[in-house]
């Protein structure tokens, strides 16, 4: 099998301006933040972001002017509130939203993954989402005489970004038993290219001990980068929890464009690698905080 090991720089160089980029994550969980920071460092522009539920990553990408459209079901940092930078970008017309419910996004990505022109759902009937999006959502008749359903057009992202627990150098990617979000089950299958960060690159023999935990075969992956704590400040169970202190640090500045930009300068642009980023984010004290998630509330 082909060696897929890359640096963050090499991996993100596979993203072109204007690409549709799918981000695997939930509100405060499992976001491939090291790849997101590298998108900002490489000053990508005109990116269309696909998220099921996006959090701080969306805010940062909006602040840095990387994205100009979003295809997704929700953007929120859950208990830390709305993503204020994203919100301002949408309200100011700088980011255009194609809003889809979860089953609609699943159907669009599912069709993309299976090379089908569309998949039907029953979700969202009666909502205003349908009229908003005739290019991708059409009511169709059941050829067998049953109910009308909503056809959701295939979505094939140019790139999917994923953070996972471990991989071998050939891009076989493993996930520990934990919440498996829909994005991870279909985004990488639908996308043309897949970039993966992992907590650890291991020998293939380590994967062979638990073949049921392998979620992506190497042939679907274009680059794999070892980035310990690559999901910080989002959680990555069972390895670490979300960093509440860091989330609050962001929410304190995110309503102010200048302070938000300073934050990006300090935490994204200044640190030249993951180690420096973690140091800026609080170093050993931060890692201790997120290690203790199991006992914390």
């Amino acid at each position, binding site marked *: 099998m082909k060696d897929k090991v890359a640096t963050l720089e090499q991996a993100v160089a596979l993203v072109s301006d204007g690409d549709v980029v799918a981000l695997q994550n939930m509100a405060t969980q499992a976001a491939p933040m090291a790849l997101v920071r590298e998108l900002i460092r490489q000053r990508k522009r005109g990116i269309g972001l696909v998220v099921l539920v996006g959090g701080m990553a969306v805010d940062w990408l909006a602040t840095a002017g990387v994205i100009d459209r979003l295809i997704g079901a929700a953007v929120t940092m859950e208990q830390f509130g709305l993503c204020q930078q994203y*919100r301002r970008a949408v309200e100011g017309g700088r980011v255009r*939203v194609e809003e889809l419910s*979860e089953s609609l996004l699943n159907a669009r990505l599912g069709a993309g993954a299976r090379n089908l022109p569309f998949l039907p759902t029953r979700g969202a009937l*009666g909502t*205003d989402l349908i009229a908003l999006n005739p290019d991708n959502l059409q009511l169709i008749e059941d050829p067998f005489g049953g109910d009308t359903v909503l056809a959701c057009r295939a979505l094939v992202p140019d790139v999917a970004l994923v953070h996972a627990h471990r991989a071998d150098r050939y891009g076989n990617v493993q996930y520990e038993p934990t919440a498996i979000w829909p994005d991870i089950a279909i985004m990488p299958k639908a996308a043309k290219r897949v970039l993966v960060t992992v907590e650890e690159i291991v020998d293939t023999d380590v994967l062979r001990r638990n073949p049921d935990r392998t979620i992506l075969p190497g042939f679907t992956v274009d680059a794999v980068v070892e980035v310990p704590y690559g999901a910080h400040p989002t959680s990555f169970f*069972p390895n670490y*929890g979300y960093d509440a202190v860091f989330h609050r640090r962001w929410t304190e500045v995110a309503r102010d464009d200048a302070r938000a930009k300073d934050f990006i300068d300090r935490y994204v642009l200044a640190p030249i690698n993951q180690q420096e980023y973690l140091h800026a984010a609080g170093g050993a004290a931060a890692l201790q905080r997120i290690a203790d998630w199991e006992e914390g509330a």
Partner: protein
Amino acid sequence: MSDDWRSSPPAMDYSVDELMVTVLADQFHDGDQACNGMASFIPVAAFMLARATHAPELVWLASSVGLEPRPKRIPASTLEAPLWRDSVMYLEQYSDFWTYVLNGRWIGKFCVGAAQLDQYGNANNSVIGTDYHAPKVRLPGTAGLADLCSIGKQLYYWNPNHSPRSLVARVDFISGAGYLDGGDARERLGLGGGPQIVVSNLAVMDFHPDSKRMRLKSVHPGHTVEEVQAATGFELLLSEDGAPETQVPTQAQVRLIRDVIDPDGMRKRDLRRR
């Protein structure tokens, strides 16, 4: 757990979050399968209370991931691993959760919040303002709400900030289908289920069986019908029996909520946030 909740006298010192928890808990019964979403401390407390008292066989699917979990107490997030501690199953989202949800036979009850709710129970979590692409406020987005509302689920709205801004005559954007224009509009579209009740910090509302307009079911102690109406952006129907006082939590319920289920008071975050 405790079984004295049946005979326990009314609590004297309950708070409104605890009242909302007990009202919601009453909606869930043995054999139901219920699921909470993000930032849903009051619904999670309600599920846990129901299971600890009248509905031990209420199946709880924590944040669409963890089946029958045993969290130590309500943690600081209702969508993170501490909530689904000790689960019997982790549901994979695409193949498991959404299949069971779409199927229709399972996971029938959802507690949802919405930034705007209108007189026909339509919900908006998308945008405030009339121009979708240049909104006054960009809200989080519909997430799974548009699906749950259209595929026959029973929806229990909770609203910790009853006001003319959150309860409006007509939502700016339908991101979750309630009874649409009322009457049989929902039925005509072939949609089953729908909004059941709305539990706010002032009152409990339901929907008139024919017109599907929202009506006052009970008013929380310390508030009046007039006050509730003034805090609502449209005219609330009154039910035939007027508007009785909402039943208050029992002492045993309050003890369970405070000492066992949510000792850290996470449920109060739902009230503060809005």
